[in-house]
């Protein structure tokens, strides 16, 4: 690789050819201000705040889109540069709702921190916030165009990574805006509520719908028995909120914090992840041996389910009928748990802590009811839990290590790895192999399905039965596998799909600044949790075994079918053009 020598603020730096000025500057600890730039995305160069002075150029140069050349001399802090950057900031601010105290991103906003950096408290330009109506009629996300700075990160996330194309830029000049087609609310588009847009938004223009007030109300209501479940991916991300090193495992502190917040019982979604494996594994065995629809595709990711129900509703039969671990937990909390504790299901208030905004949507699906009540009452994202802990004044970093409660407190390593792309597949293979062959697996680690490659493949030999499997994360990758199925060319028996890049650890509800580097660190942490657990196979979870003995009977049995399985239907979003196209 050819190396290029340049000077940035008189500091020598050598970087590979094809590096941008902005990235080269990071290497010598110069943080050039930026808003539209995102390390995981293509160059956009539309906010212009990253301009620098390059010797020999009359005009200022955008550093995010300009590549280094040999002998380049860059100044990032001249008067000309700073004046320009201040001017741009003031212009952006003049068209931005400045009611910061009311904003969920207050204190965690890239525009706010730039204003602080440049000592701009209020623009002296006339405010003209030209905004579309607030879009807050879906259960997952709130879009407030009064705060939008038109950086296009969300559009990039929605179109390039996820290939959902719900959001676009539209109109031009002063009317330029970010919106779905025909300015429709998100629920009237193909939006899957994955929330990747909210995870990359530099400001508060797209945020999760905040449900923390509902949870506080339930906790403060003496009549309610409030239980909480925590998804596998939350424990390796929550530390980010408290400035711990990325990928810190904070399971124990998280449990302690939840107890201090006032939840009556703290349970682990890893437990129902294990349960999912038993149901889904048996479903797979049944489909393979009895000629069901193949490939079977996982159904844990609600963004993925929304995607299939929206655009690919002719392939619904390929989805596993298993509810997601969140909903399995919800169903058990309003049935089994109610039975053994004697608490009326209507008095049990079930909260989920999820890395996901689509889980909010999933919980409110009308079919997700058990014993006449909603299975999961409220879903909080990792970000919302972080805010609750901060709001309660809990000093998270120094908390003691807490333990999950019974009867849903044990999760195996197989349940833990649900949080990373490939995890469900690996967990399923561990169990499927042992259940079918009756033999112990020589090596539990299916490394072929791990990692951040878009589509991963593997073949496993189960006593002569060859099972070809694939794993996709990010809906753009999943689409490729769906196209194969459409053409009848899919060679796989089983496919795992997670809507978000990296799997749940990269979910749309995770702490802000979850870049690919951070996701890789979280994945490492997830596999570390797996390695360190005494039990690493779902079918060896003693609480799951007990649940089947005492309550459910057997996997795919009558009770399981009633409580743990669901059906899918077309979202009815598509116009039916069939007749017109004849």
């Amino acid at each position, binding site marked *: 690789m050819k190396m290029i020598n340049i000077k940035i603020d008189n500091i020598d730096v050598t970087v590979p050819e094809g590096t941008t000025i902005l990235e080269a500057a990071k290497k010598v600890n110069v943080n050039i201000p930026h808003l539209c730039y995102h390390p995981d995305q293509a160059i956009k160069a539309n906010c212009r705040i990253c301009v620098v002075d390059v010797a020999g150029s009359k005009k200022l140069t955008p550093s995010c889109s300009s590549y280094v050349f040999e002998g380049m001399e860059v100044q990032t802090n001249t008067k000309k540069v700073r004046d320009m950057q201040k001017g741009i900031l003031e212009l952006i601010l003049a068209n931005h709702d400045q009611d910061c105290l009311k904003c969920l991103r207050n204190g965690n906003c890239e525009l706010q921190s730039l204003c602080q950096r440049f000592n701009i408290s209020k623009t002296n330009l006339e405010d003209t916030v030209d905004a579309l109506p607030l879009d807050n009629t879906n259960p997952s996300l709130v879009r407030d165009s009064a705060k939008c700075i038109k950086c296009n990160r969300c559009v990039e996330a929605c179109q390039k990574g996820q290939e959902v194309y*719900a959001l676009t830029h539209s109109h031009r000049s002063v009317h330029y805006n970010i919106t779905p*087609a025909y300015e429709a609310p998100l629920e009237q588009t193909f939006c899957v509520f994955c929330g990747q847009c909210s995870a990359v938004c530099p400001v508060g223009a797209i945020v999760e719908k905040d449900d923390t007030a509902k949870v506080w109300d339930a906790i403060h209501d003496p009549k309610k028995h409030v239980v909480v479940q925590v998804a596998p991916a939350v424990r390796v991300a929550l530390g980010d909120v408290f400035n711990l090193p990325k990928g810190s495992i904070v399971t124990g502190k998280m449990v302690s914090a939840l107890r201090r917040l006032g939840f009556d019982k703290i349970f682990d979604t890893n437990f129902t992840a294990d349960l999912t494996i038993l149901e889904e594994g048996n479903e797979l065995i049944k489909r393979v041996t009895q000629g069901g629809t193949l490939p079977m595709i996982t159904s844990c990711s609600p963004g993925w389910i929304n995607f299939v129900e929206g655009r690919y509703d002719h392939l619904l039969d390929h989805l596993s009928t298993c509810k997601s671990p969140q909903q399995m937990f919800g169903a058990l909390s309003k049935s089994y748990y109610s039975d053994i504790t004697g608490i009326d299901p209507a008095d049990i208030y079930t909260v989920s802590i999820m890395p996901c905004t689509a889980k909010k949507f999933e919980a409110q699906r009308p079919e997700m009811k058990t014993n006449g009540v909603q299975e999961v009452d409220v879903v909080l994202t990792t970000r919302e839990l972080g805010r609750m802990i901060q709001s309660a004044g809990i000093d998270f970093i120094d908390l003691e290590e807490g333990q999950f409660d019974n009867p849903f407190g044990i999760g195996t390593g197989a349940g833990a790895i649900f949080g990373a792309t490939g995890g469900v597949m690996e967990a399923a293979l561990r169990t499927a192999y042992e259940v079918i062959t009756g033999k112990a697996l020589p090596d539990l680690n299916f490394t072929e399905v791990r990692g951040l490659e878009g589509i991963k493949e593997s073949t496993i030999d189960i006593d002569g039965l060859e099972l070809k499997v694939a794993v996709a994360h990010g809906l753009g990758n999943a689409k490729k596998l769906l196209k194969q199925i459409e053409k009848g060319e899919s060679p796989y028996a089983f496919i795992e799909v997670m809507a978000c890049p990296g799997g749940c650890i990269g979910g749309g509800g995770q702490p802000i600044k979850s870049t690919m580097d951070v996701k890789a660190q979280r994945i490492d942490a997830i596999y570390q949790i797996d390695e360190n657990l005494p039990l690493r196979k779902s079918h060896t979870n003693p609480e799951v075994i007990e649940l089947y003995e005492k309550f459910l009977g057997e996997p795919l049995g009558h009770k399981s079918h009633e409580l743990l399985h669901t059906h899918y239907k077309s979202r009815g979003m598509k116009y039916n053009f069939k007749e*017109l196209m004849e």
Partner: protein
Amino acid sequence: MNSTETKGFGILTKDLATKIDTIINYYQSDSTKLVGILLDIQDVIPKQYIPREVASYVSERMNIPLSKIYDVISFYAALSDVPRADYVIQLCDSVVCKVTGNTDLRDAISSILGINEGEATADGKYWLEYTPCFGACDVSPAIRINGKVHGYLTSKDSVKAVLDQYQ
């Protein structure tokens, strides 16, 4: 949103769908010709606009995401996403027409028809909008009605005479 019924159509009849198919085929379904395709489609739709159902139909036919089509429709002044009228009066808003008096011209049209820019008359006959230069500077101030240019509109009478041609 969980309704399994597909949405009914208002404007998109079988007849219109056939016309749209003909237009798309004429351009060989080439996505780089999308602006031309949309302009031609808009011409065959009453009130000269592209409703969501039509854009969705084009999206499906040409395999282009609906949001991308909307981006194009909203970008170009010549394309509209809201119903306009039988006669679309486009008032040139560029420098030359401004200098030669397009403000008076707009006032004349407004007083004759009782509408401002971005509005249609109650009978749905006329719509008034500003548009970027369409190259009629030599006869400015000018308007364009359903594609036909009318210039030298410096008096209310001259404006009325033009509008009278569109009944």
